[in-house]
């Protein structure tokens, strides 16, 4: 059984599932995927990319020079996609168990709709 992914790692891999992205676009996509909750710092992003590249979950797709600066585009590898799938299964299984236990608790009040409580 593989180790659970940390949230930033999971978000980075998820952000790369659709298409290869360069650093700035990847930061924006992570923010978008997390609903604006997670805003990665550049240092954190590159530390994570280094680790994921070493582990073979992410690879450099292309390199181009834009305005005199090197810009790399990253893509998720097959192993990276598998890691995301495994993590999604794990979270889904956990969510199912949690939901089942919640149902067994009679005193749990029905959740109010968003914005319904003041």
């Amino acid at each position, binding site marked *: 059984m593989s180790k659970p992914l940390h949230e930033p790692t999971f978000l980075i891999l998820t952000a790369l599932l659709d298409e290869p992205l*360069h*650093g*700035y676009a990847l*930061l924006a996509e992570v923010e978008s995927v997390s609903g604006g909750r997670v805003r990665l*710092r*550049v*240092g*954190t*992003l*590159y*530390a994570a990319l280094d680790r994921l590249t070493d582990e073979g979950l992410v690879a450099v797709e292309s390199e181009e020079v*834009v*305005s005199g*600066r*090197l*810009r*790399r585009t990253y893509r998720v590898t097959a192993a990276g996609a598998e890691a995301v799938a495994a993590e999604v299964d794990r979270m889904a299984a956990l969510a199912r168990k949690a939901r089942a236990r919640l149902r067994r608790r009679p005193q749990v009040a029905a959740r109010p709709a968003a914005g319904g409580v003041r």
Partner: protein
Amino acid sequence: MSPARRYRLLLLAYPRSYRAERAEEMVDVLLATEERRGTRSVLLEAASLVGHGVALRLRRPAEGRPVAPSLGLAGASLAILLAVLGAQQLLAAAQRGLGLDGYPDAWRLDVVWVDPRWPVQLFWVTTGLALLLRRNRLAVVSAWTAAVLHVWLFVVTAVTTVDLPWPGDVGPHWVATGGTPQAGWVLLGLAGAVLLGGPVRLSRARAALTPRRCRTAGAVGLLGAGVAACAGPAVYAVLGNAALGLSDSVRGPGLPLVLSATVLVRGLLRVPHGRGALVLLGVLAAAPLAARWSEPMTAVGAGAATFAAGYVVASWARRADPSAPPSRV
């Protein structure tokens, strides 16, 4: 200062090879994200960059200026000697505290149970043990902790001696145990930490100075400390107050240090780059010795300057030698 330049400065926290590969790309992203960050976030981003850079430096094999292996060898040897010295001092303090030092009981009124140098000595002993157990990182961290603590003690001592307002002044007067001879030991400790440098340099030094040799030097030093601890009281018991100076000298760190140094010198003479290490150690040893018999701070200053010059020369000599195997600090 332009933002790009500011970010490049922050990226200096990263290892050189990493910067060569990633700096421009990261600066590009940092500039692109700058607009959407507030002032507070800019500071956090800077802290994050420095933190990740330093962490990467600690994780990665060290790199940078090529240096002579003799520097690492000198560092490991000096650390062993300082560990022996620390062990001897702790043993002597315990002996004194337990009343086993052979002096009259009345003198025990002057016994100082708490000596501010204990932590320094403990950290050097830890460094020595880490060297023997092949825990390079622990050895380096412990050596630097001991050196920084010692420098701090010395500064407190110097400042309280001249009655300046200083936080250290709130402590009892036993803090003022140093004086200028102590400066020589501070210099040695600091030099030991500088020479040990990082785990990589230390591992290179240890490849030359085998664990067996380190063990022998440490064991011989501890044996010397034990002999000194017994011989000092014996001299006092036989010769009395007339030989107080001799008794103090016998129980001091001289014997353990000489024994350890003898083993280390024999070892260094047999390994590559050992002679260079011996020259460095000779310069370093001259500082506290000269401080004892001359204008102390001048001697210590001259020793420190000579050591610094030797260090730089050793680094450049290494850089100029293309035939030498790669060695990075």
